[in-house]
């Protein structure tokens, strides 16, 4: 049989993976199967530029000719019903079978549902794909009141964007700080201050308890602390859960993600998983982790493609993340998995600063607010395993670049 690789999932991970296979010289057939109809696209703009624009389609990951030029068969708007590892085939929606020699799973994640009655009411919205974003855009009239549930990256980006469009927004965050453990306390309070300056009503330490209905539609929200807010649209951003159903049914080991080895292989050297759906052993980490980010998806895709082609190497990229909210640029290098101590470089009040996060003497992460250059240097420091002293980190005159030997 002709050599065939099937990639399930046409998001950042799946598309990068198929491109990497070609870059690495693979000449057999590649199928990429994606559930959405749209030409594979960038997800981050959905909560930002796409929401403020009138575009029908979001920015694509690659032009359509890329897939033709590289002989990548895209099957879009197609669901995979079954993965049969024994007979090495997938069964798609219409019952058709596609056989494979090697398989990549990049099924991503889906929004975590809010466990509240009324979750399915008209006006209760989740945001993951272009259809969701277009639906939110279409239902909002002028200067409406919108409730955002969840003060993480996604919720805050949406709040900032809708505010800039003239809507008034209330954000409910169940925790005591914005963006939870993902950012340092200094960054969390900076963004809290900014959102309030923009007129966003940010409510911490409170969560919706029930949806108020009128007819079949949303009319408002009441909270556990007894607040009551009228709104016909609520946008929920309380995290995601990895899409592991197919992998589980195929007998792969899953626990909050498909468990893979350091080279992204799942149980066999001809099966890999990458991106939001994969739980991997982090170099130097205690346990497997799952990371939801574009960078993680594309870097893991590269490792996974190499593994499928018989050149496994451990995944070791430094994780990094970004969020933009109006003109505020937040970039984070490194991943936090425990308490840290902060050293601020620059002044929080100036709106341009970085927070260097240490565990003991070791630098583990850096949050940069409107400090893009420091973010790039931070990524390099972490990759090289170099830690500045706390004094060096906190001294804006000290040249951090000098610590990285080239």
């Amino acid at each position, binding site marked *: 049989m002709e050599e065939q690789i099937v990639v399930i999932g046409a998001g950042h991970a799946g598309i990068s993976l198929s491109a990497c296979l070609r870059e690495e010289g693979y000449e057999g057939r590649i199928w990429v199967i994606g559930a959405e109809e749209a030409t594979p696209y960038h997800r981050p703009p959905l909560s930002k530029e796409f929401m403020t624009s009138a575009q029908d389609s979001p920015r694509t*990951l690659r032009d359509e000719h*890329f897939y033709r*030029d590289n002989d990548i068969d895209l099957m879009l708007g197609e669901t995979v019903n079954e993965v049969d590892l024994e007979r090495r085939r997938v069964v798609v929606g219409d019952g058709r079978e596609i056989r494979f020699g090697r398989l990549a799973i990049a099924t991503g994640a889906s929004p975590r549902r809010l466990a509240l009655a009324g979750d399915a009411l008209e006006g209760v919205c989740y945001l993951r794909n272009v259809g969701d974003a277009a639906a939110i855009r279409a239902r909002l009239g002028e200067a409406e009141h919108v409730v955002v549930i969840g003060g993480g990256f996604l919720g805050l980006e949406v709040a900032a964007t809708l505010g800039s469009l003239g809507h008034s927004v209330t954000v409910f965050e169940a925790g005591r700080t914005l963006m939870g453990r993902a950012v340092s306390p200094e960054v969390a309070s900076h963004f809290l201050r900014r959102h309030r300056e923009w007129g966003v009503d940010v409510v911490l330490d409170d969560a919706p308890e029930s949806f108020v209905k009128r007819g079949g539609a949303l009319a408002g929200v009441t909270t556990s602390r007894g607040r009551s807010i009228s709104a016909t649209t609520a946008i929920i951003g309380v995290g995601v859960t990895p899409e592991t159903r197919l992998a589980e049914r195929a007998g792969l080991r899953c626990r909050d993600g498909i468990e893979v080895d350091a080279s992204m292989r799942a149980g066999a050297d001809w099966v890999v998983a990458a991106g939001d759906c994969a739980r991997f052993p982090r170099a130097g980490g205690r346990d497997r982790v799952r990371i939801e980010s574009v960078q993680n998806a594309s870097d893991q895709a590269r490792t996974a493609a190499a593994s499928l082609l018989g050149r496994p190497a451990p995944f070791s990229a430094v994780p990094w993340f970004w969020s933009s909210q109006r003109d505020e640029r937040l*970039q984070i290098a490194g991943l936090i998995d425990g308490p840290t101590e902060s050293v601020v470089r620059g002044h929080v009040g100036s709106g341009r600063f970085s927070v260097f996060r240490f565990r003991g003497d070791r630098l583990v992460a850096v949050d940069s607010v409107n400090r893009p*250059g420091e*973010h790039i240097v931070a990524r*390099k420091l972490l990759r090289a395993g170099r830690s500045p002293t706390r004094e060096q980190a906190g001294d804006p005159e000290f040249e951090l*670049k000098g610590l990285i030997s080239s």
Partner: protein
Amino acid sequence: MITVRYIEPDLTERVVQVQPGQTLMQAAVNNRVRGIVAECGGACMCATCHVYVEESHVDRLKAVDATEDEMLEAVESERQDNSRLSCQIKATPEIDGIVVRIAPVQV
């Protein structure tokens, strides 16, 4: 279409016809020009699309803004006067025939 000549890190030259309005980063990614990583997809967040622009075209480009300037200060391959992030260069008739050399190391 706008003609762009890319010189890949191993000095292979690639000529690409670019749709007006696309950035030189997007065109590179769409046409398998090697050496541009572009993880952030053009949000000016990753600094992995560093190029050197042929001197005669430098002045025809929109000036470097503060964000791009700070990122270029931190890139791995040495910053030169003609260094740019290719996600910030849009293909327009004014730059038809532009030549960009891709930085050997990204970040």
